[in-house]
């Protein structure tokens, strides 16, 4: 079969006219072919083209290259999920957003619970005047000793809402079904209708713990469409803050995992050290999560020499503390005994589901956007290929410990020389490239985050598609729970620590 998907680059806008517009059959065949050859889905979504036609667009990645193609969306089509698992959630999302039915889909259920954008008949038969939970199915199990545990949406801690339905036999989990959507804010359609001055404020609030990851994706997409080029200093500061974000989240979660196995010293120390990393971001931009730092064209704050030395000093003090606490955590036999062989996800399952980030690397998939599709300062950094093989909680914890040490090294090296950047202010009043497609990818701390923007013939945003890494990885958590004791749910959950709001958008 002739290859017709078009190679594109991370963060480079292309004319939509150049993106191959295939027949649906060719589109489906080639997409499935690429996935069965080891390709992975980065984006797969529907959009309303000018003139009212609904179209499909896919962006795939395969061994270091990105490919795009589109087609007209049929109202009903044979589900790609029947051929390849990784389309499963994307097809449900397309059905929910645009009322397109994938026939033969193995589990055609709503994703976030909202009426479709076209006002056509709902694929799921839901009445959205009715509040969530509406009428939709859950997996059911029956037989002696079989029972269900339902948790949420309001959880016991200070955390985001979601519904978890455990099908159990005794203490053993047969299946965990995760129903999200409670955090749905309608961000994607909002972005195409608001005054452009609101764009960065909205995108940095997709997921607060991934503020830098998502605002980088957004800024790079806007830069590609507006022809803006951030200066070197801005690239360095972006890289530095993305690594600080990774550090804060990994350190915090490692502490939480320690708390979950009732080993309290690292739990408390990590909680405190996480704050120290957030406070480094606060020092740079006045906000602990990096809100207000990244803007199209660069960054809003400079890194003065005083600030650089202050940050280097703080990191120098923190580094041995972090090393010692992580070593205490990893070398305590009772901790290790709880983490090893707990919640194992196989290499094959991770491959089929397309798990990304630490969740994927824990299962032997070394994919890392920083190495494969580098942007910002990563083009100048050497990110080693690294993965664990066991796919259990221990592997996820090990990967995250490694990344903490690696990120400290990156931040240290970036702080060695002066960072010179001219801060940018508001979005410049210049036009946005018309009839264009741009896709951006960044390795946020949970893995591959991606934004995709399509513009219309007048240079307005036609479609804004957001994909948080959690969109791939929530199913990894479900798989980890299979045949695992229900009391090990917290460990598996924390070792993934996925985003509800990033998923729900």
């Amino acid at each position, binding site marked *: 079969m002739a290859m017709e998907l078009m190679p594109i680059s991370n963060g480079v806008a292309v004319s939509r006219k150049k993106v191959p517009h295939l027949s649906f059959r060719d589109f489906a065949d080639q997409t499935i072919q690429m996935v069965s050859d080891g390709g992975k889905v980065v984006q797969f979504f529907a959009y309303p083209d000018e003139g009212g036609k609904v179209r499909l667009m896919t962006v795939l990645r395969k061994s270091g290259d990105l490919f795009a193609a589109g087609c007209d969306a049929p109202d009903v089509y044979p589900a790609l999920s029947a051929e390849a698992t990784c389309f499963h959630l994307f097809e449900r999302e397309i059905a929910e957003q645009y009322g397109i039915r994938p026939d033969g889909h193995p589990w055609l259920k709503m994703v*976030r*619970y*909202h009426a479709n954008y076209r006002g056509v008949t709902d694929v799921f038969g839901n009445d959205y005047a009715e*509040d*969530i939970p509406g009428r939709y199915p859950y997996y059911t199990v029956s037989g002696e000793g079989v029972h269900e545990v339902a948790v949420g*949406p*309001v959880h016991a*801690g*200070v*955390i*985001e*809402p979601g519904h978890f339905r455990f099908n159990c036999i005794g203490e053993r989990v047969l299946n965990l079904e995760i129903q999200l*959507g*409670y*955090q*749905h*804010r*309608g*961000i994607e*359609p*909002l972005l195409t*209708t*608001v*005054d452009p*001055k*609101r764009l960065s*404020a*909205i995108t940095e*609030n997709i*997921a*607060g*713990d991934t*503020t830098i990851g998502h605002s980088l994706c957004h800024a790079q997409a806007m830069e590609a469409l507006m022809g803006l080029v951030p200066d070197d200093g801005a690239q360095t500061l972006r890289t530095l803050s993305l690594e600080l974000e990774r550090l804060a989240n990994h350190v915090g979660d490692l502490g939480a995992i320690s708390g979950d196995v009732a080993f309290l*010293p690292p739990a*408390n*120390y990590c*909680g*405190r050290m*996480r*704050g120290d990393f957030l406070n480094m971001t606060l020092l740079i*931009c*006045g*906000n*602990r*999560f990096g*809100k*207000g730092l990244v803007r199209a064209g660069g960054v*809003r704050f400079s890194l003065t020499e005083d600030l650089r030395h202050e940050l280097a000093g703080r990191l120098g003090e923190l580094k*041995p*503390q972090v090393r*010692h606490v992580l*070593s*205490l955590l990893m*070398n*305590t036999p009772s901790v290790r005994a709880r983490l090893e062989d707990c919640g194992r996800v196989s290499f094959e399952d991770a491959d089929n589901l397309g798990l990304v980030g630490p969740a994927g690397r824990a299962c032997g998939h070394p994919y890392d956007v920083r190495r494969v599709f580098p942007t910002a300062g990563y083009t100048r950094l050497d990110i080693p290929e690294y993965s664990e093989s066991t796919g259990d909680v221990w592997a996820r914890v090990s990967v995250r410990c490694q990344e903490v040490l690696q990120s400290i090294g990156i931040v240290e090296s970036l702080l060695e020389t002066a960072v010179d950047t001219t801060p940018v*202010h*508001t979005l410049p009043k210049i036009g946005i490239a018309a009839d264009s497609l741009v896709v951006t990818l960044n390795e946020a701390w949970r893995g591959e985050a991606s934004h995709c923007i399509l513009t219309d013939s007048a240079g307005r945003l036609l479609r804004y598609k957001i994909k948080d890494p959690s969109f791939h990885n929530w199913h990894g958590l479900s798989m980890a729970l299979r045949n695992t004791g229900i009391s090990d749910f917290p460990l598996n959950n924390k070792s993934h620590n996925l*985003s509800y*709001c990033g998923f*729900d958008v």
Partner: protein
Amino acid sequence: MLSILKNRFEQGYRTSGYPKTPVCLPARYRGRPELNMDAPVDVIHACADVCPQEAIDPVAKTLDMGRCMFCGDCERIADGRFVRFTQNYEIAVAKKTDLVTKGTLPDLARHAKQHFKKYFGRSLQLRQVSAGGCNACEADLNVLSTPFFDLARFGINFVASPRHADGMVVTGPVSRNMKTALLQTYEAIPEPKVVIAAGCCALSGGPFQGSPEITEGLDRLLPVDLFIPGCPPHPMTHLHALLSFFK
């Protein structure tokens, strides 16, 4: 064991002396805004125009801290000639109208409902409900339990069940899909109860204003006793608000 002890010594004692000893935030932190009433009209309009949140009323010369995300665009565009953000993080208010400010805020401790201090002054148990936000507010509420802030030393805790709670802290713009669960949680809390709205989203819908999927302000659904501005509010803002309002 030796390793545990070594780490313990290395970590040291970290709990802040607040409120007895002050905590200062860095220069780039943006807290309570100060407004210059003598600023030229065109400067004020420029500030209002640049605001992504339409938080500035150029005619009344006010800034609505309920809508403000403290991004600082208004300060930067006019070099602070109209709005200047101070490092003062004590910005919570008890009345929604007090969020609209010219730069001065009422003393929260004196404006607090006195019966709350009587009921909850020695022990306050709160149920947090996250309803559609970005999880940053939740994260900066969670850190109140870490050693630096150590909220429990003031007799304030977050609890798992609304039945055990004296009140509710709500974050997020109350998404349509969370509304029922939020209202049911409120119902489950015994009287007398407190409702705290934390963060720009819970105060006004935040950056998601205009989306049909959210509520533009928790006070449209429930009576709110305490409003904590910020995106997210700094943990010190939370701490100051809780201590001033209830202690």
